């Protein structure tokens, strides 16, 4: 297995520079399997979001989110490769639940803005998988800046600054336009003859 192929599930995680630094620093030092570590990171957030958690003070919110970011980033740095496929979905779950929770803290009128933001980010999430399958390459890395942990941090700042729901709507609009325009551009370029890997778009066919 080549190193590049091995790292692709990690590409789906959309780690930014802070998450990667945390992975390098903490990953080798915490003696837990990566999937377990990622789960430990997500659990407090999932639990507090599930019981409502609408009357939580900002420092507690920050602590729960920081715990999730630190533990899931560290999971990405574990040398053990077993079960590595579980990390991207857990990171997505953490990130998206964080937006829903932050919007709920602002009030139920802010929930549609979280829906809009997640829908815009989901476009990019699908685009990563489908472009890899059909074009043979992932979208450029700058589209994932500032990383999922950076996006969560900005979302927290928006809540703290009282900029919700407008902040989420603006972010959803800007990201949506950037993602769609970049994807369209990539297909115009690919359509002009860049030869893709002929075996990259093999479907998962349930054949004999």
């Amino acid at each position: 297995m080549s190193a590049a192929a091995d790292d692709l599930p990690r590409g789906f995680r959309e780690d930014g520079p802070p998450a990667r630094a945390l992975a390098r620093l903490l990953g080798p030092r915490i003696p837990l399997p990566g999937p377990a570590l990622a789960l430990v990171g997500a659990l407090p957030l999932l639990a507090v979001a599930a019981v409502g958690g609408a009357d939580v003070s900002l420092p507690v919110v920050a602590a729960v989110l920081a715990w999730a970011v630190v533990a899931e980033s560290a999971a990405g740095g574990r040398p053990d490769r077993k079960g590595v496929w579980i990390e991207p979905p857990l990171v997505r779950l953490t990130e998206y639940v964080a937006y829903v929770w932050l919007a709920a803290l602002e009030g139920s009128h802010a929930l549609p803005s979280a829906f809009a933001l997640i829908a815009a980010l989901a476009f990019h999430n699908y685009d990563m998988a489908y472009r890899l399958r059909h074009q043979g390459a992932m979208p450029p890395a700058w589209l994932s800046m500032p990383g999922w942990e950076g996006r969560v941090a900005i979302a927290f700042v928006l809540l703290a600054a009282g900029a919700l729901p407008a902040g989420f709507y603006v972010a959803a609009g800007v990201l949506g336009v950037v993602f769609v325009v970049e994807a369209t551009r990539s297909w115009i370029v690919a359509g002009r003859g860049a030869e893709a890997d002929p075996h990259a778009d093999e479907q998962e066919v349930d054949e004999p």
Partner: protein
Amino acid sequence: MSAPTRPAATSAAPVDVAVVVATAPAGDVPAALARLDDGAVLARLVGQLTRLGVRRAIVFTRPEWERDVQAALGSAAEIRTPGSPVDELRAIAELARTTAGPMLFTYADIVTHESALEGLITDPKANTGILAGGRRRHVAFRVQARRGRVIAAATPYHTVRRHNATFLGVLRVAPTELPMLADAADRLAKLVADVPAAWQDELTRKGTRWRLLMGRGGPFDGDAEGDDFAAPDDSEDPENTGGSAGALSPEHEELLANRLAAAPLDTVALLLLGLVRANAPIQPVYLRRLFWSRPLSPAAAARTQSRIAALDEDRLLLDSAVKSSDGFFTTFFVSPYSRYLARWAARRGLTPNQITLASLVIGILAAAAFAVGERWGLVVGAVLLQVAFTTDCVDGQLARYTRQFSKFGAWLDSILDRAKEYLVFAGLAIGADRVGDPVWLLACSALVLQVVRHTSDFSHAFVQRSGTGMVRQPPLEQPLDHLGAASGERRVALDPRRRSLAARILKLWSRLDDVRIVRWLKRMAAFPIGERFAVISITAALFTPRVTFITLLAWGGFAVAYTQSGRILRALR
């Protein structure tokens, strides 16, 4: 971007040189000269290849048959008479070194639909590929395919342990793999010149197995009456049959004798093996519903003639355009009529991408109707969503039916499917708001659950695939398809007492697939798109958006538990 993007290679001939191997006998005449209503089998095949854009066809036959073959073909192809499989393989190596474009290697004595050959020859994805059939075609050699790649192939001298498909005698080799093919042909020629003892043993074993199989009766022309993909393995090893090698009917004796005589001359199967063992990427292109047979006796040829005459090729091609991996709702409630819409669209000259965009527009209208919030809006939205979903099935079927595949089209179809689904979520939530029943939290949860579920699927599929890209292949000399070192480990795995609990559960679980209903229930449990859209339409039209989201969350949550436990078990195995 509405026109399908085809790679530059198709502007040249899709196949530069086709090597047609007419050495298999039917008694003492070439099997390829069996008569059909529209001429000899060989002439029919060469005609099909020429129509499909093969630039140059070269027929290899025995010296004593040259005159007859010449008479059947006229000037349609060059004829060569190498005299032995060794010389034939050397000639092929020479051709592979001097040919610039793609090459095709095929048995001369097969009868199949032109669409089947077209699928292999003009499919832009299949740079190097084979025509493949289901595993019940007894007359064809077995192969094992995994994730769109052939990883093991049988020949007269080689065996496949875990076969799941068959090689239907047509191999297309892309220019990039031609040097590999030339080297393999040279090495095979050396081995065939002095057949190793292990190879001879394997051929003897195969002869015994073929006799046993014929004793049990069955279709031995290779026409399996359509491939039953999900049929349980019919344990074909002589050890398991329990049947005795009784006397065969005279016709079966004749077929068996011809097949045994053809086996040592089967250079096409050897070439495929050479590529597989050299780790070349070889894609199986499945026959699906189309017809294929290899009649090795006059009686078999007569049967082939009557069967193929009774079939409607266009109808079979249309049936083949329906994906066999679809879910229950799609298969039984949409595909039965969507395929006729696909044919209608093909006749109107519509492209798959136009259909995809039409589906998006209808999906947006459905979301808008849901956003009204009142009963009539929910009902109209439910109906429109089903129309959008049907249209969405039509685009893929149209692409497969007319062979207008494009990478952009596949991407657009996938991404717009997701867009439609989440637009409908938003529409439902807006509508619920307007009638005073806010469900945004449920809508957000359903959105997050579905995106995370898909991310898990992509991530898992990706890791699986990168692990199977390269299989360590044994050398050409070895009849078994796995490395010697691995055989000890396999024996342990075969011993039921040594198998892990996870492996035993999985084995039992896959056994349940033999029951048709269970197979469909398993597919439904994973909550595929057809079921999701049906749930949305039914619950929204009859109840409220709140019920819709709760159902989506409950079924989706169950699907997560179901698929993840399967994956964890497989990881522990």
